[in-house]
C-alpha cells in the first residue's frame, strides 16, 4: 500500500515539474471536465438544500397581501415584521385579520416555552438514565446481563405507532393527558438506541483508571459520577444534542397527548396555525414566520455544534 502511494506521488510531482518548471500551478494543465462536472453537481445539491430556507425567510419578511403580486420577486415583497408580530400574538385580532392572518389567538412564545420544557426534560432524563443503564451493561458483571441487553435492543424494532396507542391509553388512565408529565414520561427513562450508543463508547474506554479507583476502595456510584461521566463528556454531549433535536421535532406523540394550549409544543402549534389560516387566502407570511421561529433553535444549535453532529452520523446511525 505504501509503495503504490509513494509511486503515485512521485509520478504526480514529476508531471507537475515537467509541466511548469517555474510557476507553482501549471497553466498548461488541461481542465479536468469530470471534476468540474462533479463540482457543478455539488453546487446544485447545496443550492437545492439552502434555497428553500432562504425562501422561508423571504416570505416571513414579506407582507402577506403583497405576496400575490410579487410571487416571483426574490426579495421580500413589501418588507414587514407583521408576520412575526402575528406569530407572537403582538397584533390585535383586527390588525391581524387586516394583514391576512386568522385573528385567532396564537401565541408562539408559549409554544416555544413548551417545546423547550419538553425537549429539555426528555433529553436530560433519557441521556442520564441511559448512561446509568449503559454502565450496568458494560462495566458491571451480573447474571443475565447480555440477555437483558438483547431484549432491550429488540424493542428498537417495534414501530412507535404500535406502542403509541396503548401508551396513550395509559397516560389517559393516569389522568396525565395535557400535562408535561404525560408528554415526557415515555421518552424520559431510556431508548434502546441511547443505551446502545453509550454502551459502545463505555466498552471502548480504558478501564485502568476505574480499576485503580476501585482498588482505592471507590464504589461504583462514585466511579460512575467522578470518572465515567467526565471521561464520556464528548459522546454524552453528542447524544444529548441528537436527542434534543429529535425531541424538538417530535410531532406524533405531542399531537396525541398535548393538544391543550398550555402544553402545546411548536410542531403541534404549527399544525394548528396552518389549519386556522383562512382557507381561500392562507397567511403564508405568518406561516413561514412561524416555521422559522420553530426551526431557529435547531439552526442555532447546528451552527454551534454542527461538526459534532455531522461526524457522529455514520457510526451512530448504522452500528
Amino acid at each position: 500500500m505504501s509503495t503504490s502511494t509513494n509511486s503515485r506521488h512521485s509520478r504526480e510531482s514529476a508531471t507537475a515539474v515537467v509541466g511548469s518548471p517555474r510557476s507553482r500551478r501549471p497553466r498548461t494543465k488541461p481542465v479536468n471536465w469530470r471534476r468540474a462536472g462533479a463540482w457543478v453537481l455539488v453546487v446544485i445539491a447545496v443550492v437545492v438544500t439552502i434555497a428553500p430556507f432562504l425562501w422561508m425567510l423571504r416570505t416571513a419578511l414579506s407582507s402577506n397581501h403583497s405576496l400575490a403580486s410579487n410571487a416571483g420577486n426574490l426579495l421580500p415583497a413589501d418588507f414587514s415584521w407583521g408576520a412575526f408580530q402575528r406569530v407572537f400574538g403582538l397584533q390585535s385580532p383586527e390588525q391581524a385579520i387586516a394583514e391576512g392572518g386568522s385573528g385567532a389567538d396564537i401565541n408562539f412564545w408559549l409554544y416555544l416555552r413548551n417545546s423547550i420544557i419538553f425537549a429539555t426534560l426528555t433529553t436530560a432524563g433519557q441521556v442520564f438514565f441511559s448512561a446509568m443503564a449503559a454502565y450496568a451493561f458494560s462495566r458491571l458483571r451480573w447474571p443475565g446481563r447480555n440477555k437483558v441487553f438483547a431484549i432491550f435492543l429488540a424493542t428498537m424494532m417495534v414501530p412507535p405507532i404500535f406502542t403509541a396507542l396503548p401508551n396513550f391509553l395509559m397516560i389517559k388512565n393516569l389522568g396525565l393527558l395535557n400535562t408535561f408529565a404525560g408528554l415526557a414520561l415515555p421518552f424520559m427513562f431510556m431508548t434502546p438506541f441511547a443505551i446502545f450508543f453509550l454502551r459502545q463508547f463505555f466498552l471502548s474506554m480504558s478501564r485502568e483508571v476505574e480499576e485503580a479507583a476501585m482498588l482505592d476502595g471507590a464504589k461504583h456510584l462514585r466511579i460512575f459520577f467522578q470518572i465515567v461521566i467526565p471521561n464520556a463528556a464528548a459522546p454524552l454531549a453528542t447524544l444529548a444534542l441528537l436527542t434534543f433535536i429529535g425531541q424538538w421535532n417530535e410531532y406524533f406523540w405531542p399531537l396525541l397527548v398535548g393538544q391543550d394550549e398550555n402544553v402545546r409544543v411548536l410542531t403541534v402549534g404549527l399544525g394548528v396555525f396552518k389549519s386556522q389560516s383562512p382557507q381561500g387566502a392562507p397567511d403564508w407570511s405568518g406561516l413561514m414566520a412561524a416555521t422559522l421561529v420553530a426551526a431557529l433553535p435547531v439552526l442555532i444549535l447546528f451552527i454551534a455544534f454542527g461538526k459534532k453532529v455531522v461526524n457522529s452520523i455514520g457510526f451512530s446511525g448504522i452500528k
Partner: protein
Amino acid sequence: MTTLAKQAEPAAPPQPGKPSKFGIRRIGDLKIALLFIFPAMIGFVLFFLVPTIRGIYLSFTEYSILGDPTWIGLKNYTTIFSDDLFWNAMAVTVQYVALNIGFQTVIAIGLALLMHRVAKSTFIRGVLLLPFLVANVIVALLWFWMLDYQLGIVNEVISWLGLPRIAFFGSDQWAIPTIAFVNVWRHMGYTALLIFAGLQAIPNHVYEVANLDGASPTRTFWSITMPLLRPVLVLVLVVTVIGSFQVFDTVAVTTGGGPVNASRVIQMYIYQKAFGESDFGYASALSVILFIILALVAFIQMKFLKGNETDLD
C-alpha cells in the same frame, strides 16, 4: 499495571446455573447493577413491554375508549382483509415507499460519492444534513408553500416556462409523489452521510490496485465500490424503508390523507381509526399488521441482500 488490572477483574464471567466456588461471584455486581438499571427498566417495562403486550391484546378486542375492551377474537383481522380502505392505504403506502426510497437511495449514493471524492469539507456535509435536522412538520409546511398552486415559487417557474400549473398537493396523481419528493429532500443528505461512512470504510489500496490496472471510474464503481458497500447499503435500506413505511407528519400537516383517499397512508389510517373514530381495537389490529410487515421487510432485505456478510475478506 497489567497485573493490577487482572487482579481487579473477576476471574471469569459468572455462569448462571453452575454453582461456583464463591457465591458472591455468581451474583457478581447484581445489587449495584439493579440500582443502575432501575430507571431504564421502569421505562422499558412501562412504555415498551407492557404497551407491546397490551397492543397485541387490544387487537383482539372491540374497544372504544369508554368502557372496557370486549374480546372478539380474530374479528378485527378478518374485517381488515375485506376493508377496501386498508388495501387502499397499503397501496398508497407502498407507492410512497417505492418512490421515496428509490429516488432517495440513488441520490444519496451520488452525494456520498461526491462527499468522498470531490467535496471533502465537513462544512458541505453539514449543509447537506441541514434539512434532516429540521422538523418534518416544518419541512412539510415550507414545501406546502413553495408548491402552492396559486402563489408557490415552483408553480411560478413552471408557468414562466409556459407549462400548465400543477396542483401538487391537491390532485390524486400528484399527492403521493409530492410527499415522497418532500421527504427525499429532507432525508437525502442524512442518507448520503450514512453511505459516506460506509465508503470511508473501504480501504484505499483496493482503489489503487484498480487504478493501476487501468479500470475506468464506471468500472471501479460497479465492480469495487458497490459490492464492498453492500453491507452498509443493506443496513441503510432496512433503516430507511422501515422509517418510510411510517410516514405520517408530512401527510398530516399537508393533505391530511386527501384528496379523498389519495394520500391516506397506513399510519394516517391507524391514527384516524383510533382518534377519529375511537376504534382502538381495530386500530391496534392495523398496527399489529404494520409491525408484521415491517419485520418481514427487514428480514427479507437482510436475507436476500445478505446484509450481514461482507466481501472485504
